[in-house]
């Protein structure tokens, strides 16, 4: 049974909605700016991509401030019998920060199961839900689980929700690992020096093709294939031979029943770290016989961690619908391995299938094959 994306809501540093994010990307405008939410002068980078209207340590967590209005907007479209999957890496970690900074409050308020209960209460689903976390592949992994549930006939409607926020906890940690670029992230650029942290929330309703047709749902695209793998190699560094990502892409293509030649667009993880981007390009060069338009949105909205997979999936579907590969924002001079694959300007594409890749700490890899195009799914 085919898994169709039939409704979606998105909140990014560009603002509310899929179109705000898409138009920001197409304009080549970066939403990255010096962070004002906390003191970052001591960190390797002061840059982050944040939403301006959130209250930090004001009681409600950042992710719940993002998710509450987003889920309210989507709720009328969500059938009550939908399964619920939530993806995040650090969820409500700002509640733990607040408790330790003030000496009051309970650090355990930040544990994943509590966030899941809050999201379930807002989601419109009767299902208490499952939280899926797979480092920076969390969003893609949750989408993959949704598609797998539908393919297996175990569900015909699944709501996938993802969110992560820019916090002192996360930025100080990436700074400690020397993973941040002092400048806004420059994925695939010769002079890239690391990632920039970003925040986002997204929700996607995935339905079986039968139910979508029966209910007259508009189809944004289909999730045709997916693959998850691990490098079993290093906690923070990607594989030196890209074998894990190549395996995930191969699995996703096999599930979709297509060859690599069918893929005409790649939404890469493209963090802007030297090692990640090298690892991805090595994988793409292994999988594709000729260059395919590759883009990363992380120079625009930062690395939105657990939400990245959903945001990047929605942007890849927009690209298929519009017939335009978005630019890789902040790209000035493509590195040798990426030259001819990435571009600083929008490019026309006539693809009906896209590949979205993500990778994360612990050697985790994910790959999704999407189908879409003018009018939605093929």
């Amino acid at each position, binding site marked *: 049974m085919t898994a169709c994306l039939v409704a979606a809501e998105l909140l990014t540093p560009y603002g509310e909605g899929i179109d705000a994010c898409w138009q920001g990307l197409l304009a080549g405008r970066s939403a990255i700016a010096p962070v004002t939410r906390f003191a970052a002068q*001591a960190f390797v980078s002061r840059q982050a991509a944040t939403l301006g209207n959130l209250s930090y340590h004001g009681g409600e967590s950042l992710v719940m401030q993002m998710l509450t209005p987003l889920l309210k907007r989507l709720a009328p479209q969500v059938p009550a019998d939908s399964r619920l999957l939530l993806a995040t890496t650090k969820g409500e970690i700002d509640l733990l920060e607040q408790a330790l900074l003030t000496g009051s409050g309970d650090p355990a308020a930040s544990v*994943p199961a509590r966030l899941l209960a809050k999201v379930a209460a807002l989601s419109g689903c009767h299902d208490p839900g499952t*939280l899926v976390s*797979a480092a920076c592949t969390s969003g893609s992994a949750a989408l993959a*689980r949704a598609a797998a549930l539908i393919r297996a006939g175990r569900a015909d409607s699944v709501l996938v929700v993802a969110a992560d926020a820019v916090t002192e906890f996360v930025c100080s940690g990436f700074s400690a690992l020397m993973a941040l670029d002092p400048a806004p992230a420059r994925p695939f650029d010769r002079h890239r020096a690391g990632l920039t942290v970003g925040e986002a929330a997204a929700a996607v309703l995935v339905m079986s093709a039968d139910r979508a047709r029966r209910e007259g749902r508009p189809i944004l695209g289909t999730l045709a294939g997916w693959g998850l793998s691990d490098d079993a190699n290093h*906690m923070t560094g990607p594989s030196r031979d890209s074998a894990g990502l190549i395996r995930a892409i191969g699995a996703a293509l096999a599930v979709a029943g297509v060859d690599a030649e069918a893929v005409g667009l790649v939404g890469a993880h493209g963090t802007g770290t030297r090692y990640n981007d090298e690892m991805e390009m090595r994988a793409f060069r292994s999988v594709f016989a000729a260059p395919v338009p590759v883009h990363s949105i992380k120079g625009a909205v930062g690395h939105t961690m657990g939400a990245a997979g959903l945001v990047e999936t929605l942007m890849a579907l927009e690209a298929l619908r519009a017939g335009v590969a978005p630019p890789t924002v902040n790209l000035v001079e493509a590195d040798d391995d990426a030259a001819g694959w990435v571009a600083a300007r929008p490019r026309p594409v006539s693809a009906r299938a896209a590949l979205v890749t993500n990778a994360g700490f612990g050697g985790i890899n994910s790959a999704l094959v999407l189908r879409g195009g003018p009018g939605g799914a093929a």
Partner: protein
Amino acid sequence: MIAVRGIGWLAAARYGSVARGLQEAFPAGEGPAVLAKTGVVPTPYRNFGRLDPLSRNTIAAVALALGDAGLTGRPGETQATGIVGAARDGSLAADVAYFRDYLENGRTLGRGNLFIYTLPTSPLGEAAIQFGLTGPLLYAAGAGAPLGSALELAAELVAGGEAPRMLAGEAGADAALYLLVDRTGPGGALCSLAEARAIVEPGDGVAAVAARFSALLTRKGAL
């Protein structure tokens, strides 16, 4: 048939593997680190003592579960096995340790070696490195028993053909239990998925769950 083929566990004072009928007490003053010294964790793990407690317990329980299923690999080899883990509080202890240290050190510089354990998947990543697990790697949490959420997700991944076999388990500060789940003929199975679901569902702790698995196998005459 999707079934359980190996079970490894450790609690505060004891460790064991169910199919082998192994149940041992840790030597006085020793914890799971002794398993790395005595070969239960099959390959020398030089950094075992430096891991956070959840990672140590996860690696030890996974070693016992793989050994219980007869799947001890050789150093440097990989296997297509995946892993789904759960923990009642996610990475809370590691989160507190990292951020408290950051605050105590002037709120300017965090420690990378503490930060890397602040993902709920970090112990699973350490286990993947140790045992060469190249299949899907996920943390799961649900409204019910944590081990139940992990077991369901692992079973789905095997049923869908995404991995030939999966480890599913739960780890805490002083206990962990992992199951090896695969498509096994009746001869190789310790128990069915339905039996395993019923045993883990109460969510009453590793020692109780391990005892129920042992009791089930005794009733079946497998022990």
